[in-house]
């Protein structure tokens, strides 16, 4: 075979000779980089810059003010209120979704007829637009004619209708419930994928040794599943941290400020009061919190994996 006649990597056909062959790999990567640079990287840097200005579309101003926005944010009870709700929402919903997802995954791991139907049904909440989910839960949990109130009254759990998302005490819980409904099945699929990588021989060996189902779960499956669950949990937490649609559509941050989260607060600051400078400071603070969350979580995952060897 005469290998010399074959040009390495790229032949003369490459790009019809419009560019040197060695450029091809780079040229193919250009579109993705241009798109990400203009729509993600540049706006992030720009937002960081805006957070040091008093940019307001209403007042038509844009002057450098240094750390002024950050100083007023530090003393802003609305910011801390939203910060607290965001962290609370992230922790509680991620925890519930992981536990519920694990339960669903363990169940779906068992072979039974109709299993693929159940798996398919679990994708329905995930595929639904979040705005539709919000409206759907708005109707289900409606304080006057909602089905949930009716069902709970029928079985005697409540004696009169509860104002779910319309009361300061229940609103955040209702939003968390809606989020768990939408996302727990998805967590189940991720955990299920991890479960399928647990060697069957290990489980069988355990059965031979006479361990019961609970012991098998606690000592074999769970430790092996832990990396998957932690990574899925991390992705979920990062996603939960930026919750917007559910809150904005279901309660709009209310009643009062009882469900305001960082996303809705920054959004309203920018698009309702048109204070882009202060709004950018809020979203930058959110970005920093999320980065710290990811770092902390990532550090924890690495340590856990090291410990397992």
């Amino acid at each position, binding site marked *: 075979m005469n290998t010399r006649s074959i040009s390495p990597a790229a032949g003369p056909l490459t790009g019809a000779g419009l560019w040197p062959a060695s450029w091809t790999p780079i040229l193919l990567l250009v579109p993705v980089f241009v798109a990400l640079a203009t729509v993600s990287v540049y706006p992030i840097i720009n*937002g960081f810059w805006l957070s040091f200005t008093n940019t307001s579309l209403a007042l038509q101003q844009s002057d450098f003010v240094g750390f002024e926005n950050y100083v007023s944010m530090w003393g802003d009870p609305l910011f801390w209120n939203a910060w607290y709700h965001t962290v609370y929402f992230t922790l509680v919903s991620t925890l519930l979704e992981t536990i519920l997802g694990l339960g669903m995954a363990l169940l779906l791991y068992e072979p039974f007829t109709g299993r693929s139907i159940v798996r398919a049904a679990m994708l329905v909440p995930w595929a639904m637009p979040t705005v539709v989910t919000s409206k759907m839960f708005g109707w289900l949990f*409606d304080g006057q004619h909602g089905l949930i109130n009716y069902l709970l009254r029928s079985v005697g759990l409540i004696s009169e209708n509860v104002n779910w998302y319309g009361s300061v005490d229940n609103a955040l819980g209702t939003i968390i419930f809606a989020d768990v409904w939408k996302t727990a099945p998805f967590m189940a699929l991720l955990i299920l994928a991890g479960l399928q990588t647990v060697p069957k021989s290990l489980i069988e060996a355990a059965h031979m040794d006479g361990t019961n189902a609970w012991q098998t779960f606690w000592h074999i499956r769970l430790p092996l599943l832990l990396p998957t669950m932690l990574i899925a949990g991390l992705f979920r937490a990062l996603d939960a941290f930026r919750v917007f649609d559910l809150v904005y559509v279901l309660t709009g941050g209310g009643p009062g400020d009882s469900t305001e989260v960082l996303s809705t607060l920054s959004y309203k600051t920018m698009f309702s009061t048109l204070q882009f400078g202060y709004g950018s400071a809020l979203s930058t603070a959110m970005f920093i919190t999320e980065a710290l969350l990811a770092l902390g979580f990532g550090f924890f995952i690495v340590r856990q994996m090291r410990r397992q060897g």
Partner: protein
Amino acid sequence: MMRSETFRKLFVYAGAILIVVWSGGPFIWQFLTSLQQDAALTAETPSFWPSPLTFEHYYNVFFVKQFQYYILNSIIVAGLTTLLCLVVGALAAFSLSRLEVKNRFGILGLILSVSMFPQIAIVGPLYLIASNLGLLDTYLGLIITYLALGLPLVTWVLFGYFETLPREIDEAARMDGVGPIGLLVRIILPMSLPSLVTTGLLAFIAAWNEFMFALAFTSTIDHQTIPVGIANFTNLYYQPWGDISAASVVVTVPLVALVLIFQRHIIEGLTQGAVKE
């Protein structure tokens, strides 16, 4: 022994039914709601079976709220976004998987890390940029934004799939004098059809469902997408639950149908990135 086996079966089936009811129940209630008259919806006891059956909410959705415009906008925006995502993502994934690129995993990591940013951090600056360029309330403004938001996932999943294709075909193509572009277009892409369909569907669903950017960037029915249309159904004092339910059914059923048809691929595509290391 036999007894515990039956007990286990019973437990599994009960759990399975619970999951199906939990996942499908709310949507079925939404569907039943869309077929009931307003009087039935505000009655003391809710009726599960629509009687009398009515299609007035569907009539309202299309003839009063002009919902078909939102649907058209969403089809155009999500469709073009998907197409562009696949083209740009495939070029990048091919380059990273098949050509000589230094530090390919560094580049992949960089692309993925971009998707980790909270989107609220870019909506303000992007709004100002779009405003300066005259891209507010246009399809193009939304499509460019969604393209960048969808690319990390599309590139990652396609890269993962391309990596599973045997390297021998590259050699064979080179022997035949086919260049890299020819290899991608004539060999790799046709072989990747299942992955392209899944990835495209994921990009489509993401664009179809996106709310925040659509809310910020569009202001008229000429370019607003479905989520914005549904969010705007409510006026200050009254929630038209019947109409909202009908609209929800109209936008969710096609999506659910697609997801059910491609469910096996979707589950594979989604779990691949998260679990494989």
